[in-house]
């Protein structure tokens, strides 16, 4: 093992102080009516930091079911899903504030969007969120995936009304449909059932012995990293909703950013429903949030001696990154969200479209995995 130089050790010691500086204003803001843009940056940095530090990867969580028969990350994501659902229900019930939850209609657009997104994220080596984190770690492939993501989201925004306005009207808000408590119970039963299904598929009959189950949750330190990460991420997710009044979404910020740049370059976004926000696109705080994720990931990887510029092994990866990114950008618009805003936080918002997207994402990931093996093995 190479012994870290004093300079490198210093870097590692600095990380907790950076985090403290970021967390303090967030905590203060919880007790005051205070919604500054800085808070978007703070949440974004923490979000990126946790994802990088704990290696929490949504793509691997779905893809490795098919490629490695591994369900560990899948369970970590289900933990995030369950905790966020509980947190969102509590926050919206207890607080008297008005929340802007992610409840959207669904239809063919959701199915097709999830399918394309699933393929895109496997081919690009990361979902929209994952690409941001990888860019912060210096991966050349995902820098190109990021460019593809931006371009795809612009085209997707142009096609948004084509897909969504005409055909899609079915909105199911489980919370309104059956009451918060019932909706919460139904969702938790489904999530728990999926969790134990994954555990069973991974461990077999061993999980029915209490001793084995205990061992599962104590022993493997590396594995526990994922679950710790999922818990931290749920806390950030809840904090963001409570302070900033709407759940985290990723691709919205990316799309506003591309639209804003396109406008600056002389393009016109007038008449495009998605860009009809009434204010300058580039001033949207959601843009601050997504770019802060890159910064948070960089801080985490740099302070822990993991950052380096990672050149691709073959030029093929650059094309795959671009293509996968474009697919994700486009499909996230027509499906009204990526795997975070369209699936995790949509489910936590108790909207049925989240479950529909989750299902089609799984199918898309399966197709993507087959495609990946063809492309590179």
């Amino acid at each position: 093992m190479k012994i870290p130089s004093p300079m490198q050790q210093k870097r590692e010691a600095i990380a907790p102080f950076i985090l403290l500086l970021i967390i303090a204003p967030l905590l203060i803001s919880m007790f005051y009516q205070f919604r500054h843009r800085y808070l978007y940056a703070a949440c974004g940095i923490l979000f990126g930091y946790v994802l990088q530090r704990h290696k929490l990867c949504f793509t691997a969580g779905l893809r490795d079911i098919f490629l490695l028969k591994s369900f560990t990350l899948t369970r970590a994501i289900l933990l995030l899903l369950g905790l966020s659902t509980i947190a969102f229900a509590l926050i919206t019930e207890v607080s008297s504030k008005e929340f802007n939850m992610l409840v959207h209609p669904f239809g063919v657009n959701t199915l097709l969007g999830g399918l394309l997104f699933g393929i895109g994220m496997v081919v690009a080596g990361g979902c929209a969120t994952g690409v941001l984190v990888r860019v912060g770690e210096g991966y050349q492939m995902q820098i190109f995936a990021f460019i593809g993501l931006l371009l795809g989201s612009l085209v997707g925004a142009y096609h948004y009304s084509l897909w969504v306005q005409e055909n899609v009207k079915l909105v199911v808000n489980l919370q309104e449909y059956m009451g918060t408590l019932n909706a919460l119970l139904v969702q938790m039963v489904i999530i728990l059932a999926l969790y134990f299904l994954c555990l069973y598929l991974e461990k077999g009959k061993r999980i029915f012995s209490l001793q084995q189950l205990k061992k599962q949750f104590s022993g493997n330190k590396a594995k526990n990293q994922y679950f710790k990460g999922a818990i931290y991420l749920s806390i950030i997710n809840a904090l963001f909703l409570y302070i900033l009044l709407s759940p985290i979404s990723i691709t919205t910020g990316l799309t506003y950013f591309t639209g804003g740049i396109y406008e600056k370059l002389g393009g016109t976004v007038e008449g495009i429903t998605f860009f009809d926000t009434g204010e300058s696109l580039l001033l949207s705080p959601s843009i601050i949030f997504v770019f802060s994720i890159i910064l948070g990931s960089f801080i985490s990887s740099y302070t822990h001696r993991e950052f380096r510029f990672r050149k691709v092994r073959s030029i093929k990866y650059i094309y795959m990154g671009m293509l996968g990114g474009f697919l994700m950008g486009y499909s996230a618009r027509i499906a009204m969200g990526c795997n975070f805003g369209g699936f995790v936080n949509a489910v936590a918002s108790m909207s049925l479209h989240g479950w529909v997207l989750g299902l089609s994402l799984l199918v898309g990931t399966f197709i993507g995995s087959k495609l990946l093996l063809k492309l590179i093995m």
Partner: protein
Amino acid sequence: MDNFIDALGEMCPIPILRAEKELGKLKKGEKLVLETDHSCSIQSVINHFEDKYNYPCKYIEVEEGIWQITIEKV
């Protein structure tokens, strides 16, 4: 000399898939060294081989952002 896979610049999850293929060819007691610059690899490779196959793994840092993971086939 241990068997060596250079997986620098590979995308996820190719390092694991290549290691799995290579380990299949090795005899018991032989070791495989996987060099990777993928930051997720340490956790995912060790998880995969220790859990699924019970192969002991250890890793060293070669350079900032590059690691060598040694997997022993048992």
